[in-house]
């Protein structure tokens, strides 16, 4: 075991893992986090905490992770490269580990243009792959990025990375995934899958290169709340593909929410059959309450 986290245990045992995701509040209260923890407890193996997602200021992902852990849910703390340089990042990595955090998801982060501080100076001292490499180096080589040895108590994270099978150039996405694996990623959480065919193709390429044997791939699923939301994702969110027939199906449905849940369940059931997929990551942002229902309907618990 690299980190000894629950998620790592589940995955290494070959169980179909279930993770969820919550966004910390835009205030200084743990209340919402505690509530969400109560809802999710027992239904999922771990929960991702976003790091100032879409570049909007929120409660720190490390602090939020601690709140979840205290309420019985294992967190996956997300860390982006946008806001901190290599010094701050390593410092936070030490701190988070000291607070019991074991899972880390490394991302480059959304550009500040999309957030509430578009005037901010971004950092990008290092990129996401360099971050993975840095976290792996701290764990495996017991070294800081600069090469200095971490003499004792080095942090040992279960290192996650993201993959977006829906961004371009498509053929390169698998290669980049491999690059992340080579840098040290232990598990991969993908972008939300709506275009299941494309994901199938992606996985086929993954298998051809044998990557599914080197890393746990957790497929992202997002239940759609409404046809309008689906349309918005299709049109406005970069790196997402929502097939038209999906939107049409939502539009035709009497109860769009129920239809969204149904679709998510179907998707999970489909994903489960794809070789090389190690679990699902259910991203029901601002709709966390639906996660248990989906998990149940999909027969995951």
């Amino acid at each position, binding site marked *: 075991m690299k980190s000894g986290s629950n998620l790592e245990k589940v995955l290494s045992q070959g169980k179909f893992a279930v993770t969820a995701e919550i966004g910390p509040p835009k205030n200084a209260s743990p209340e919402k986090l505690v509530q969400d923890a109560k809802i999710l407890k027992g239904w999922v193996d771990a929960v991702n905490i976003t790091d100032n997602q879409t570049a909007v200021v929120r409660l720190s992902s490390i602090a939020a992770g601690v709140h979840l852990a205290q309420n019985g849910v294992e967190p996956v703390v997300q860390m982006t*490269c*946008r806001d901190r340089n*290599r010094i701050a990042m390593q410092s936070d990595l030490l701190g988070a580990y000291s607070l019991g955090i074991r899972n880390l998801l490394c991302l*480059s*982060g*959304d*550009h500040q*243009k*999309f957030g509430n501080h578009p005037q901010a100076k*971004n950092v*990008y*001292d*290092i*990129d*996401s*792959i*360099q971050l993975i*490499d*840095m976290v792996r180096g701290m764990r495996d080589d017991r070294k800081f*990025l600069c090469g200095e040895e971490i003499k004792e108590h080095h942090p040992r994270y279960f290192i996650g990375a*993201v*993959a*977006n099978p*829906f*961004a*371009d*150039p498509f053929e*390169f996405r698998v*290669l*980049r995934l*491999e*690059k992340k694996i*080579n*840098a040290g990623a232990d598990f991969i959480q993908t*972008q939300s899958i709506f275009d299941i065919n494309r994901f199938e193709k992606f996985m086929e390429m993954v298998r051809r290169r044998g990557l599914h044997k080197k890393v746990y791939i957790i497929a992202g699923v997002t239940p759609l709340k409404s046809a309008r939301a689906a349309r918005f994702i299709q049109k406005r969110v*970069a*790196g997402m593909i929502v097939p038209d027939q999906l939107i049409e199906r939502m539009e035709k449905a009497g109860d769009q929410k129920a239809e969204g849940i149904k679709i998510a369940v179907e998707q999970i059931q489909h994903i489960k059959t794809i070789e090389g997929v190690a679990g699902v990551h259910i991203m029901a942002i601002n709709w966390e309450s639906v996660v248990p229902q989906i998990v149940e309907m999909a027969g995951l618990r």
Partner: protein
Amino acid sequence: MIVAEPKPIKEVAGYIKDCTKILVVGCGGCTSVCMAGGETEAEMLAASLRILRKMEGRELVTAVTTITRQCEPEFVESISSKVKEVDAVVSLGCGVGVQFLAEHYRDKWVLPALNTVFAGGTVQAGIWEERCGLCGDCILHLTGGICPVIRCAKSILNGPCGGSQNGKCEINPDTPCAWHLIYEKLSAMNRLDLILQFHPAKDWSKERSGGLRNRKREDAVL
């Protein structure tokens, strides 16, 4: 070249509101080429400032001159007699030009008329685009001659990020994704191995954050 763009005229007028005599100095270098600071624009600015003053009912005396490059002390010195005559100097050079003038003429206000925006080139007549981030540690040999430091909004070195779609950057659908371009170029040249290599964290000390940079060539020092 250094690409600059004119500041709003009224802003410049504000800088010199207390002056009665100014010297408007164009630059025959980069800012001429990017049509922001040559003699034509210097004349335009001088006329504009005079017009604004005239409308206030106050006179503004302007002299206009252009020097070959504002970033050379000799050229800067060549206008000393003109500088002496005025209350302030308005420079249509880049940030370098303004500073060279200000350093050279210690007791004069030297005011910028341009915003210096980037190091770039003419992509077509009348359109200039950024190309170099002046990072001090060029990696273009690895990226097919396309700079991710300046052309990627995140400056990532192991791109493209997940926001790349249809070859465009997520932050602006008109801007090509630098990493997509790199991918295409390397793929066309059969050198995808370069992009698959892990690019370690960059030494940014050679970039501006490493402090004031200078360069010395021993044999050229007089």
